[in-house]
């Protein structure tokens, strides 16, 4: 019995007693079942397994603390109307916002944060971490940490511009189809069906094999692949708005299609569209990461998370986890955006899932 194990069980039992005393049933059940599971885990896996559990719980508590503090911070700096909304946000949503905020800072201030340039060779290949390089060097002797920081700018930037392209095309076509109706609507609907029945990664590979992996080709390819999804949603949302009386009134006033879309339909369908933008970004980000993992994304020497994983994958067979950091960065941002989108969908639909 090491000191750590004694402290571990003492902390758990004291915490569950406190929860029981204050009549908190949920936390008590969680803590006490964790205690019971820990007995088994301690016998099977020894102190190491318990240490893993403790680290995991610590990370979770830390994340919860950060999200709580960040939510309070947002409540204070936001204008009154918005801060009321934020106050009701779950911790997962404020965690998501915090992560997005951090990534934005890293992307915008990359040259000032990163200690070295993104394609600057400063050491030998796969050099281990030292006081100069936080995470060691990559396969060409460039600083891994700096490249991850720059990757926030390049990978997220590419995914964001591709999403915006897809969104503008899809939303515009959807609004037009909903307002105009008729053959245009039918034609666009069929066209979207066909594009959506090709698997996205396969379609992207086909286009990149023909036009080569340039950045603008990636953006256009992704826009073509994902615009139909936006089109469908926009058409459905706008379709519900178009049948309203005030649209009829505007039409009778003699307003044109442009006015109808801009002043009447768009303001009444923003909430689901913003949530869709977040979801769309997740899909696009994962697709672009997959492409760059296959060597068809942003071309070297520009730092990019997907290709960094592939280039340094050899390190994994030596039990080193550094190549996984860029992949984890991709996953973390996607999870964060999903958390925020979940909250926004919940808020805009107003439905309490029971």
């Amino acid at each position, binding site marked *: 019995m090491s000191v750590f194990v004694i402290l571990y069980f003492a902390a758990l039992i004291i915490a569950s007693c406190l929860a029981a005393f204050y009549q908190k049933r949920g936390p008590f059940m969680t803590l006490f079942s964790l205690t019971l599971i820990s007995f088994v885990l301690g016998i099977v896996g020894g102190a190491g397994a318990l240490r893993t559990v403790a680290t995991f719980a610590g990370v979770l508590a830390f994340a919860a603390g950060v999200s709580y503090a960040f939510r309070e911070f947002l409540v204070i700096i936001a204008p009154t109307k918005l801060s009321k909304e934020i106050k009701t946000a779950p911790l997962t949503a404020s965690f998501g916002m915090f992560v997005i905020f951090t990534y934005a800072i890293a992307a915008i201030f990359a040259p000032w944060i990163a200690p070295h340039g993104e394609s600057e060779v400063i050491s030998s290949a796969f050099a281990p971490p030292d006081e100069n390089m936080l995470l060691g060097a990559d396969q060409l002797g460039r600083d891994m940490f700096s490249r991850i920081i720059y990757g926030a700018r390049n990978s997220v930037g590419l995914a964001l511009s591709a999403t915006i392209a897809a969104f503008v095309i899809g939303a515009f076509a959807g609004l037009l189809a909903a307002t105009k109706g008729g053959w245009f609507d039918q034609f666009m609907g069929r066209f979207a069906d066909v594009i959506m029945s090709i698997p996205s990664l396969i379609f992207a590979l086909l286009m990149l094999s023909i036009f080569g992996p340039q950045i603008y080709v990636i953006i256009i390819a992704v826009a073509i692949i994902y615009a139909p999804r936006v089109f469908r949603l926009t058409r459905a949302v706008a379709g519900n708005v178009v049948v309203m009386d005030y649209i009829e009134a505007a039409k009778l006033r003699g307003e044109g299609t442009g006015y109808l879309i801009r002043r009447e339909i768009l303001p009444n369908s923003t909430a689901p569209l913003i949530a869709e933008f977040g979801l769309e970004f997740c899909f696009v980000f994962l697709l672009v990461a997959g492409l760059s993992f296959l060597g068809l994304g942003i071309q070297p020497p520009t730092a990019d998370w997907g290709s960094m994983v*592939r280039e340094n994958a050899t390190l994994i067979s030596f039990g080193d986890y550094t190549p996984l950091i860029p992949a*984890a960065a991709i996953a973390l941002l996607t999870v964060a955006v999903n958390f925020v989108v979940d909250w926004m969908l919940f808020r805009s639909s107003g439905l309490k899932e029971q």
Partner: protein
Amino acid sequence: MGDILNLVLKRLGFGLITLLVISVIIFFMVELLPGDIAQAVLGQGATEENVAALREQMGLNKPAFVRYFEWLGGAVVGDFGTSIVSGERVSTIITERFINTLFLAAYAAVIAVPFAITLGVIVALLRNTLFDRVANVLTLTSISSPEFFLGYILILYFAVKWQMFPAISSLSAGMSFPDLLERTFLPALTLVLVVTAHMMRMTRAAIINLLASPYIEMARLKGAPPWKVIVKHALPNAWAPIINVIALNLAYLITGVVLVEVVFVYPGIGQALVDAVSKRDFPIVQACCLIFAATFILLNLAADVGAILTNPRLRHPK
């Protein structure tokens, strides 16, 4: 019964037309190349005679739509022409790899489908409890991770640290079946993790939707015991959404396989596609794309037909 047959046939016809349109897109997209295939393959430095010779050899002098029908006619009987790079028949390169890919997808599906459906139903029944919340965060994380992230984590732990399974799935002819299962365990597990997460969430949503319907409330109100509500009232109506979920996720499996195959150097059709894309070997790219698209459409079609067949309202039309 006539109505339902009509409905299914209509759906099949629509799927066939979609596939035809996709084959047109796949074929004519290559025609959009600046110059033509021969020029693109040989590069800028090629002499005029070389390009002309290759053009002759590939039959590029015929008009595009004639070549399209030749290509399509060949594709229907499994002949996709010859590879530009190696000169081999595309069908010989692809056939074995396609079988390998199907094996991997089937392996993953056999584990994932029962596992995910059971967990999804349990999570739906225990909704808004701690178990549900934890499952929600875990599945969300799994969906949000790129496939290569999950794959490399599995390699790091199962292959490098604990040395339980091989990191690279090298298959050889005449391997025994248990050996085969062991070699392909990690790629299959990666697919299982991704697909299970998707499937669980969809099953959960479908079941919760179902439990909110008025006839379930009616059954509860008339005092039926909870297990009877589930087994007699909910389950018969749950088949349609569940079949839908399975088919959609199998379709997802088919594309997810590309990245996983590359991570584990698995000799499948996804790997062939990626290799061909980087070598610009268009006949192979076209063949692989067509096969993937066809499988995708077929599974989506299966989902639709399954939904029609299991819907009592459609089976007994008024």
